[in-house]
């Protein structure tokens, strides 16, 4: 088995998931300049709600598996959109004009609240994904790839292309871009910035829900703390690509996924056996710091001129 191509595939899968979550961070940041710390928790709720629906329907109904899966997917997306909408209403909207760090603290507070609510509902156990996807393995260029991995990469690409078209071509997308540039001017043009902001949160939450299901189906059991690390990594990816930049989040997600996976594969060789794959995150963060030293606004971030 070829390590390089295997790590490439692993990195692409991980990267697509990071990218989907990172998009939520970056869209919100682009419009509000706010780090939505609770976004990782939305991902976790996506995984949890889909699991709950899956288990309930598999047990109590005789519907075909594909249909149950579709229902779980839609249920999780709907739930997370509602969640994203309410988080913005409750925790961020009252602080629209507050000092910059105040919404960061409410975001952290929301994140704690959501995590512990999930713990009260689903307990502290690790919940595994039911065995409904028949795994097939293929061999490509000396690497193993499963149909699940292919599905994740393809779905992520489709979603990202869809989002890109939505933002570039649709009325809503144009309104979002206008609001990001200047909420006041957008309002003068007849756009309701509050509705656009809500829509942005819901869009991000929908992507996060799908990413949550992917993580659960591919990497293993869901847990009420799973959102924290995922959110952190996705946020890192968004910053890496240039926060506020949609294409940047996609690129940043993929790059971070690849860095982590190659890091895990090669770090032991690189450090002469001193560091094992448990240093994977160290590797990722070090590369992040190095990249930011040379490109202080991320890979695709615009260099904002100093206002004097």
């Amino acid at each position, binding site marked *: 088995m070829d390590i390089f191509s295997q790590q490439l595939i692993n990195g692409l899968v991980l990267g697509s998931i990071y990218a989907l979550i990172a998009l939520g961070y970056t869209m919100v940041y682009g419009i509000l300049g706010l780090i939505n710390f609770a976004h990782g928790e939305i991902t976790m709720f996506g995984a949890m709600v889909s699991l709950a629906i899956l288990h309930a329907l598999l047990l109590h109904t005789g519907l075909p598996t594909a249909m149950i899966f579709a229902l779980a997917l839609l249920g999780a997306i709907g739930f997370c959109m509602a969640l994203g909408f309410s988080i913005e209403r409750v*925790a961020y909207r009252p602080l629209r004009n507050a000092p910059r*760090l105040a919404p960061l603290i409410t975001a952290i*507070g929301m994140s704690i609240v959501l995590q512990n609510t999930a713990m009260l509902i689903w307990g502290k156990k690790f919940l595994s994904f039911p065995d409904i996807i028949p795994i097939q393995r293929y061999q490509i260029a000396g690497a193993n790839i499963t149909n699940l991995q292919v599905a994740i990469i393809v779905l992520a690409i489709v979603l990202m292309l869809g989002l890109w078209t939505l933002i570039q071509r649709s009325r809503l997308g144009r309104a979002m871009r206008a609001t990001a540039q200047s909420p006041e001017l957008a309002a003068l043009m007849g756009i309701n910035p509050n509705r656009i902001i809500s829509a942005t949160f819901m869009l991000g939450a929908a992507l996060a829900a799908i990413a949550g299901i992917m993580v659960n189906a591919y990497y293993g059991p869901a847990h009420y703390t799973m959102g924290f690390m995922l959110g952190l990594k996705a946020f890192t990816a968004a910053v890496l690509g240039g926060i506020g930049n949609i294409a940047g989040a996609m690129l940043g997600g993929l790059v971070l996924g690849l860095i982590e996976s190659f890091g895990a594969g090669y770090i032991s060789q690189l450090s002469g056996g001193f560091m094992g794959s448990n240093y994977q995150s160290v590797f990722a963060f070090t590369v992040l710091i190095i990249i930011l030293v040379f490109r202080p606004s991320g890979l695709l971030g615009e260099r904002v001129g100093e206002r004097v």
Partner: protein
Amino acid sequence: MRPGLNKLQTGWHALQRDRRSVVITWLALGLILACLPFLTELSLGRSWVRILDFTLLYIMLALGLNIVVGYAGLLDLGYIAFYAVGAYLYALLASPQFGLHWPVWAILPLGALVAGVFGVLLGAPTLKLRGDYLAIVTLGFGEIVRIFLNNLNTPYNITNGPQGISQIDPIQIGGIDLHQTQHLLTLTIPSTHLYYYLFLIFTLLIIFVSIRLQDSRIGRAWIAIREDEVAASAMGINTRNIKLLAFAMGASFGGISGGLFAGFQGFISPESFTLFESIIVLCMIVLGGMGNIAGVILGAILLTIFPEALRYLGEWQQLLLGRVWVDPNDLRLLIFGLALVLSMIFHPAGLLPSTRRARELHARRSILAQEQDSLYEQQR
């Protein structure tokens, strides 16, 4: 906006104008602080004296972070790394891990120094970064330090990995072992009380340094950088050095409190230095009132005491609802998070904001009018 607090503040200022009442107020405050551990033990029990000790440690930490975030405006999400550096330095130099048993007065300054060097190490590559880019790099730095502490048990055992280091020497000062109960005349002073007094001295020292820094040339340079870095450098401030100094200074406060923590606890492991801890310390200063020393202290006290008070949730449920419906430990963090959200929504600038911040918050209304107000105030 908050007549109660404002009235309290005007009252305080009026008190300060009268010289005799100043002396009396400070004497009373000193007396309360001196008796606090005994009063606490009498009313709430020994375990609360321990919580009091931790409150003091967190006040020190929060004041250190306040220099970086509150004064210099550099959002640091990895601050706990410096606490870890101080704690591990103490643990390595005064425990059976390497068989070293250095005295505390040698370790603490060294801890402050090493943490300060780490602060510069973090600061140097991040000088060009702004706002949230800085936040993520500091966060990454904190994680890197934690992961190293967690894994440096192979191939060479330095930190003992996830098991942590135990049997750390207790703090000894002038032959007095703070882990032993001491007798002074007729008074019996338990170990927790002794640590309380030690921490209190350090806390007062750090408060003093913070106050002196605030109005010093360096402190004003920090605030200038926070408000507008370009303008600050145009005024002749060496922004690079001043920012590095903020990182180093904040870090050394963290290093000292880390050392005290290790000696007090006798055991440390990487688990005490997670990102969550960094976030909590940040919450303390934002919730209390960033840049304002009294606010930061209040925030640290509230966020240390409040989660502990929530441990009684079980008894309250018993009292109010007849039985324990939800395990208090499961409910604790949930309520803590809710309190954070609510407190920020109702006090966006913190409970005791610095005057400058309070003004900024209302600035949208009429900066001009306020400027004029303050001009009039000065003329009067």
